[in-house]
């Protein structure tokens, strides 16, 4: 115990005396979280507030045109301008090409009546009432889109147009059925109600979460745990560097010559760096709670799961320390450890979903992501913060992190004996 206490004291002093190292360990996660959250929050806010300029040329001047215009005007997403009816489709195209509008919509002449005729004709044929005169080929709506328009806006526009045309088709169908029914009805025609306006099926968006009012993750809830994890795993550089330095200056050999057990030597480092990681998390968490609202960012909330979050941090820190010990054992120089450590952490974090959520990744990387300890950590955080998970939801990932720690430490001890 005396040996352990002495080593602990030594490791703490070495850590505290290294001012640049301290700055790296504690300022880096805070800066990272603040900057990344700020950037992402700005991006999300901008994209949600942004409007797309749309030029509509309505040659139809009938139901279809009116429906499309009113549907698009209702949306905050689009800034609608109506083109003069004397203009042509190519003029609308030209306006988009010149960059005056991002999207141009051309609604051809008589498209509403063509839709109605098409439906009447199809229905008559279906009911065996004889064929109605052949209608002209149905004109199509034309949409001109600037290549810079985000895919989300593009898809949204197409959805609205599709919805508007479906609505018109549905109305025309009902109207035609109603008229046909009136023709064959034995009752007076004025006793029949006009075709009803069908209500669309309502879709309620309910995300699986603790908070009934929230429907999706905010930038703070991702960035605070994600970048804290990144910083926690970055301790591998400081830890492995320290081990290599002690080996190079001979103090490690001296300790070993004093028959100091290697496990005690490692244990003091584990305790010190575990404290560092917990402190990192507490600092970032405090920043998320106290500083974020002051700079206009969403407040970080753990939704009452502080203990579970701390538990996740504890196991993530153990895994990071395990990797650091292994790196410190195998790397021969500080440069080797720095480069290898940084690359390993950056790759593990990128693959693990720290930078980009795993659901956006290609299938291959998505499959690989489950191998990253940072992914185990961030998923455990999501389970607690977003999915209302209890201890059972994080236990499997914590056990994985513990297994990695045990494996890394065992490899370090065995390798040290061989070295």
């Amino acid at each position, binding site marked *: 115990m005396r*040996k352990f206490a002495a080593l602990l*004291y030594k490791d703490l*002093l070495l850590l505290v005396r290294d001012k640049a190292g301290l700055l790296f360990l504690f300022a880096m996660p805070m800066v990272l979280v603040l900057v990344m959250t700020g950037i992402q929050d700005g991006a999300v806010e901008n994209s949600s507030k942004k409007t797309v300029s749309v030029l509509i040329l309505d040659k139809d001047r009938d139901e279809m045109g009116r429906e499309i215009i009113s549907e698009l005007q209702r949306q905050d997403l689009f800034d609608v301008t109506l083109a003069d009816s004397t203009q042509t489709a190519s003029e609308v195209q030209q306006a988009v090409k010149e960059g005056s509008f991002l999207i141009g919509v051309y609604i051809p002449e008589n498209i509403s009546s063509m839709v109605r005729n098409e439906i009447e004709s199809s229905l008559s044929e279906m009911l065996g009432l004889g064929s109605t005169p052949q209608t002209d080929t149905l004109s199509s709506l034309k949409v001109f889109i600037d290549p810079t328009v985000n895919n989300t806006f593009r898809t949204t526009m197409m959805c609205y147009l599709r919805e508007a045309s479906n609505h018109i088709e549905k109305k025309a169908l009902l109207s035609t059925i109603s008229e046909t029914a009136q023709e064959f009805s034995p009752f007076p025609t004025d006793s029949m109600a006009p075709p009803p306006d069908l209500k669309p099926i309502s879709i309620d968006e309910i995300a699986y979460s603790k908070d009934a009012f929230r429907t999706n993750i905010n930038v703070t809830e991702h960035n605070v745990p994600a970048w804290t994890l990144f910083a926690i795993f970055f301790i591998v550089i400081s830890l492995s560097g320290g081990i290599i330095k002690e080996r190079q*200056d*001979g*103090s490690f050999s001296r300790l070993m*010559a004093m028959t100091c057990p290697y496990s005690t030597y490692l244990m003091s480092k584990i305790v010190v760096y575990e404290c560092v990681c917990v402190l990192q998390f507490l600092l970032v968490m405090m920043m998320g709670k106290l500083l974020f609202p002051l700079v206009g960012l969403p407040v970080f909330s753990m939704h009452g799961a502080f203990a579970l979050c701390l538990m996740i941090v504890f196991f993530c820190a153990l895994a990071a320390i395990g990797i650091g010990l292994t790196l410190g054992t195998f790397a021969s120089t500080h440069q080797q450890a720095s480069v290898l450590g940084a690359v390993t952490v950056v790759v593990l974090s990128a693959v693990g979903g720290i930078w980009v959520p795993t659901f956006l990744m290609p299938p291959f990387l998505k499959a690989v992501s489950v191998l990253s300890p940072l992914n185990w950590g961030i998923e455990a955080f999501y389970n607690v913060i977003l999915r209302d998970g209890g201890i059972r939801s994080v236990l499997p990932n914590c056990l994985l992190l513990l297994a990695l720690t045990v494996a890394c430490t065992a490899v370090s001890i065995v390798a040290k004996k061989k070295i």
Partner: protein
Amino acid sequence: MATTILRIEKLRKTYPNGNKEVLTGLDLTIGQGEIYGFLGPNGAGKTTTVNILAGLLKQDSGNIEIFGKPVASDRKNTMRRVGFVPQSIAIYPELTAYENLSVFGSVYGISRPELTNRIGKLLDLFGLEKFRDKKAASFSGGMKRSLNLMVGILHNPDLLILDEPTVGIDVQSKVVILEYLKTLNSHGTTILYTSHDMEEAEHLCTRVGIIDGGKLVAADSPEALARRFPECHDLKSVYLELTGKELRTMED
């Protein structure tokens, strides 16, 4: 002969990936109260032997007995009575002199009051009392060497192993260190030390062993060795007579 403190028999060592045997059956015996100079050219096997004694390397074969017992049978208890001063300055530069001594002393298992007392005496003895709270990084080479030595003798060892303890320091620091080693020896500590400095060894050692090619080629008091080679007038010329004058590299 005095009680044997250290006995090495047929020690052999080849490094992994090495194609040459560094120790080729080294035999060495050191009696109680001796200051034994372990001399040899670069690559002769001095540091390898010292590292094996300190438990930092494992021999391929051969036996080592310290205080009459095989080291392997009870290394922990044996090493409590052995002090080791490596060739490199194995202290923490970021810690003060006091903190360095305190940390290593605690690892030796010395009780707090005893440790404080010993640290005070040693700092005073080596003239470092007024630097006790200064970081070792700010020390001169000689001060660092002194601190390096102090860490090795904090626990009053019965056998002190030093690997080139005076390399690269000024004359003043060298004198302080050598004088202290003599004092320590006069109080009963047996000393094994390696050096390239023949004059220093001649002045300090009661006996010297010259190692070359991984085994001892001669061992006796400096005077007796000089008598054995009538054409040699001092230890340096005996050494050159035995090991040759051609340059050595570590690979040799």
